[in-house]
């Protein structure tokens, strides 16, 4: 069974301008799937539809056409209030820690929030949180701190830790290293690979950074203006790009 499967997904944004309804197609008949343990990257630049894709997968944006199947369940067949039962198995790691960590909450509270709807006891929850923190190479003392007491790299690790707390089958990462320095970026890339080796979740990475995707994915899907223009293994894609946009992208990094 596929961990994630998008079938012919089309997402539109609608805006009323006076009496006319303007439709913007953010995703156009997008189809792809991920198997257990696979590492896939969706490469797209600004305007390609990355944010839309993420929101759609998380159950926050209903497509006008197509299906989104998470662990076999069509999540948009479920009412909004029940969707979290399925989406809780997705570990979401958002982009910039500055906007992803509530500055008024301690790290511990933020991490425990991910377990709120699960039926675990308080002690079990705390244990899982501590385990997650250790998995990302942070000392548990960090749990009592507030986000602004920590560096960018540490904040990003906390976000990763939060995604691990529910033993996810799929980890969805939105530009995990774009806000970081190169040296921190390398740390995070290596960390993610170690986590993947240990826990074997499926990884879906959404990014514009092709070199980084190289290290975190085996398969690559190129998104341009809401459409998939190319899909291949990472090595083949770099060696033998088919679409002109892919070629343009690769050239700019060589």
């Amino acid at each position: 069974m596929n961990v994630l499967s998008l079938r012919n997904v089309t997402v539109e944004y609608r805006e009323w301008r006076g009496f006319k309804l303007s439709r913007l197609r953010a995703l156009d008949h997008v189809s792809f799937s991920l198997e257990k343990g696979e590492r896939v990257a969706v490469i797209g630049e600004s305007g390609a539809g990355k944010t839309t894709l993420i929101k759609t997968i998380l159950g926050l944006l209903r497509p006008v056409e197509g299906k989104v199947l998470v662990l076999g369940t069509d999540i948009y067949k479920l009412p909004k209030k029940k969707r979290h039962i399925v989406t809780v198995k997705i570990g979401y790691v958002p982009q910039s820690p500055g906007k992803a960590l509530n500055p008024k909450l301690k790290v511990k509270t933020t991490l425990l929030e991910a377990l709120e709807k699960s039926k675990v006891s308080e002690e079990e929850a705390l244990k899982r949180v501590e385990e997650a923190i250790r998995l990302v190479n942070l000392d548990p003392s960090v749990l009592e701190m507030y986000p602004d007491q920590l560096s960018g790299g540490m904040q990003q690790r906390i976000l990763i830790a939060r995604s691990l707390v529910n033993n996810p089958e799929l980890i969805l990462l939105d530009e995990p290293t774009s806000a970081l320095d190169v040296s921190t970026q390398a740390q995070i890339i290596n960390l993610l690979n170690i986590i993947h080796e240990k826990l074997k979740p499926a990884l879906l990475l959404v990014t514009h950074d092709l070199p980084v995707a190289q290290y975190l994915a085996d398969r690559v899907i190129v998104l341009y203006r809401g459409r998939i223009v190319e899909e291949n293994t990472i090595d083949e894609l770099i060696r033998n790009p088919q679409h002109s946009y892919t070629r343009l992208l690769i050239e700019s990094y060589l």
Partner: protein
Amino acid sequence: MVLAVEVENLSVGYVDEGEEALWAVRGVNLKVLEGSIHCIVGESGCGKSTLGKAIVGILPPHAVIKGVIKIFGEKVVDGDKTLYHKSRGKLVTFIPQNPAKALNPYLRIGDQFYYVMKSLRNYDKRRALEEAGKLLKLVGLPDTSYLDKYPHEFSGGMQQRIAIAMALANGAKIVVADEPTSFLDAHLRLQILKLLDELSEKLELTVIMITHDILMASKICDHLSVMYAGLVVEDGKCKEILKNPLHPYTKMLLKVVPVLGTRKKLESYVGEPPRLDEYPKGCPFYPRCPDRLEKCLNEKPPIFRVNGRLVSCWLYGGEYERT
């Protein structure tokens, strides 16, 4: 060979009303040759943006400055006095990081050029628009109808080109570009870099490019200065540094950057660049340096000259010493 910009023992800090100054640049020396493309490379917090702004003369009001900056031999910063009126806009110009912020959203492009040229060169409207048209053509936007449009009507890449044209509108010969491509999509970056390279040749400009991306810098740079924690740790010809980095930090930068097409192992270095208020004694790279010596902990290394390159590292003490 003429030195376009000379920086001597420059320190720049920011003051928070009555509190101690936090120093972003801590005693930097720099020599930029006329007509060259000189890149200043470093991670966030190293002071490169501050240094760039100090050279142009656009530091914020709560900044304090010490040291000497000379533009074409003329002092524009002397001790704690600033004489930027001599150079700002006339000899040195600036391309900011975010092109959207460089352009006034309420004015048409043509008008913006006009105001800029009127104030510094006293052009009348007709002449200004003519010049503007020529500049836009130089940056790859030959359509004169663009002069009537507003900034928001253009894409990010075009906005950056317009910003570059605007920076050149005053005829300044030194251009400081602060991360000119970081807000652009990857496939546009190369284009902008090539543009800067072309312009530098055509118009005989001196370009000082500030960036965190050492690979990008390597594409058009002649000369490279690597900064860490407010200091220049290595300085020399770009190609040579890339082939043979001397300072442990430069080595780290090159080892840690992912390169497309290779699967080299990405080495993880521990730690992060020090914050402005946590500046350590001695060499700032000490906590993370794999080749550190005992004396690096407490003694800040001076600048050594090694085969035409400048390195601030105790590993090279023994060759010439220089302050």
